[in-house]
């Protein structure tokens, strides 16, 4: 890695494999255990105050990456580095880490215990960490968090139950709960996909505002490429547990190089524009993650797949500043261009 400056969160060679439970007899007969490769070698970094979007279809492992970073799912391989050191695994260290890294969940209807008051839900991280001594202090902290999350006057919400709030208000409660410990990093797992379109903007604006005022970094997990473009600094495209392409948001959207990125772009609606001509539409379905694929994960559906793609797995290669692509044909094309320009052989 040539990145000298230490990022806030760094994920290196992350693999998460889940074992499939088999029937008793088939388990006896087959020696090999079936494994789903939810995440299969993912490396990226997020800077202080940066928003990185992880874009992929359902089943691409994007949520698993987020949960693994937060130590909710144990990694099979690889490390998560937070603030220059691997995330500690002992009780105390983990507790300290969890004060710095929080999660916002997809479904605000499920993420709040229906039998708890809002004040108790928001204050729960404080109670668990044992950070407040008096009831007044607790109320004050909750009040601040709710106000930061845009729920004012905060006192009106204290003794209400989640079912008395709307979806947008609930998501703000979830955000308030994530904010109360003053985290530096938040994993947002599809935070607006369950909300009405009219409420989405408010939540997204709130997240951006928190980034600007508090320098919170986000891993924004979404399946919506246009949403990723709107909110993030950088975008990583994920497919079947691997990152296909990563780079500055604008560059990915306007000059995405990976065939998968291009296929996603082709189906992304652009306002005020009717597209003419052929659109490359992907054929087939995402392969079963339980079946091991030797070559590039995308090779079975890729229009540009070659023999090499089916046998070897391409690694991410930086083609321009901060823009990396994991695709043999694209990498070879790039090599050829450079060779033509400089007349020298490039070895990559």
């Amino acid at each position, binding site marked *: 890695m040539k990145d000298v400056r230490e990022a806030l969160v760094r994920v290196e060679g992350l693999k998460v494999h889940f074992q499939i439970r088999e029937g008793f007899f088939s388990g006896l007969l087959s020696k090999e255990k079936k494994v789903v490769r939810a995440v299969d070698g993912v490396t990226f970094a997020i800077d202080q105050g940066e928003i990185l979007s992880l874009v992929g279809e359902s089943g691409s492992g994007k949520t698993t990456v987020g949960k693994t970073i*937060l130590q*909710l799912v144990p990694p099979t391989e690889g490390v998560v580095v937070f603030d220059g050191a691997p995330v500690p695994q002992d009780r105390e260290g*983990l*507790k300290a880490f*969890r*004060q710095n890294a*929080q*999660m916002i*969940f*997809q*479904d605000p209807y*499920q*993420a*709040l*215990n*229906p*039998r*708890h*008051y809002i004040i108790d839900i928001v204050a*729960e*991280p404080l109670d*668990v*960490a044992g950070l407040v001594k008096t009831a007044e202090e607790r*109320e004050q902290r909750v009040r601040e968090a709710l106000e930061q999350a845009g729920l004012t006057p905060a006192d009106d919400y*204290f*003794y209400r139950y989640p079912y008395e709030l709307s979806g947008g208000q609930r998501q703000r409660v*979830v955000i308030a*709960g994530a904010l109360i*410990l003053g985290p530096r990093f938040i994993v947002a797992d599809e935070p607006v996909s369950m909300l009405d379109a009219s409420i989405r903007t408010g939540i997204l604006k709130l997240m951006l505002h928190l980034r600007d005022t508090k320098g919170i970094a986000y891993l924004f997990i979404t399946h919506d490429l246009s949403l990723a473009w709107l909110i993030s600094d950088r975008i990583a495209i994920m497919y079947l547990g691997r990152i296909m392409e990563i780079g500055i948001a604008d560059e990915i959207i306007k000059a995405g190089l990976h065939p998968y990125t291009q296929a996603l772009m082709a189906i992304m609606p652009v306002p005020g524009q009717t597209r003419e001509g052929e659109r490359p539409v992907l054929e087939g379905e995402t392969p079963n993650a339980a079946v091991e694929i030797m070559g590039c994960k995308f090779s079975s559906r890729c229009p540009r797949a070659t023999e090499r793609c089916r046998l070897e797995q391409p690694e991410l290669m930086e083609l321009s500043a901060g823009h990396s692509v994991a695709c043999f044909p694209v990498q070879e094309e790039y090599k050829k261009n450079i060779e033509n320009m400089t007349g020298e052989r490039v070895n990559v």
Partner: protein
Amino acid sequence: MAKNDVKAKLRKRKIKAFVSQVLANKMALFGTVVLFLFILVAIFGPLLVPFSVLEFGEVEDMLNPPGPGHVLGTDDMGRDVLGYLIAGSRISLLVGALATGISMVIGTVIGIVSGYSGKAIDNVLMRITDFFLVIPWLPLMMVLAAILGTSIWNIIVVIGVTSWAGTARVVRSQTLSVRENQFVERTVSIGAGSGHIMLHHILPNVFPLVFANTILIAAAAITSETTLSFLGLGDPAHASWGMMLHYAFETGATSTGAWWYFLPPGLCVVAVVLAFTLMGYAFDEILNPKLKER
């Protein structure tokens, strides 16, 4: 404090809603009224009709049919059957309540821990539960009662310890579904331990089920007490409906046609068990909205 007022008001509103639902449900209403009457009698009855198991009557008082002086007649020792019945209601209800409490605590704790922990702990706890579930409860209780000796407290413990398995099963299955909720994952992500999650998130969400289950267990506990006492494993120093039936059977009240001796305690047991059962099913319906749709 103003905040506490809001809290209290909300709780009051919730209780009011529950009460009105109970009143609207005829089964629940009937069960509650019957039980309430029995509890009143158990508390205040002995003050009105003094009675002692050890005070025997004269020879001419033995096995007299109902008449003036003795509304429900007398037993083979010349004791007033009504007095015996009222004194017995105390013990029967007390044993039912305490044994149910023990059973509920054991069943809930084992169910939640088993369902939330999973894996090895779940396996071990569920095999123990299966043991208590499949073993014939009556012989087990008889053996335990015989070994521990006949005292009221032993009977309470024996009933409590043998009747929790069903609750544990039900609570475990509910725990399995509750723990899949995202709010549990959220709590893990803020660094909470298993104890915190089980106490603050699982327990409140399985509690309605525990409550409804408890009432049904109370019915079973009272039946168990009656059975044990009837079989002669009861505490002879205390009057209970089961002991009454035991003496009635022993002295041949059934064959001599002394119906006033064995019928009242039998009917009381049936009434209380019926009341508990009706309440249990009705509360289950009220507290478990999914059942209402059917």
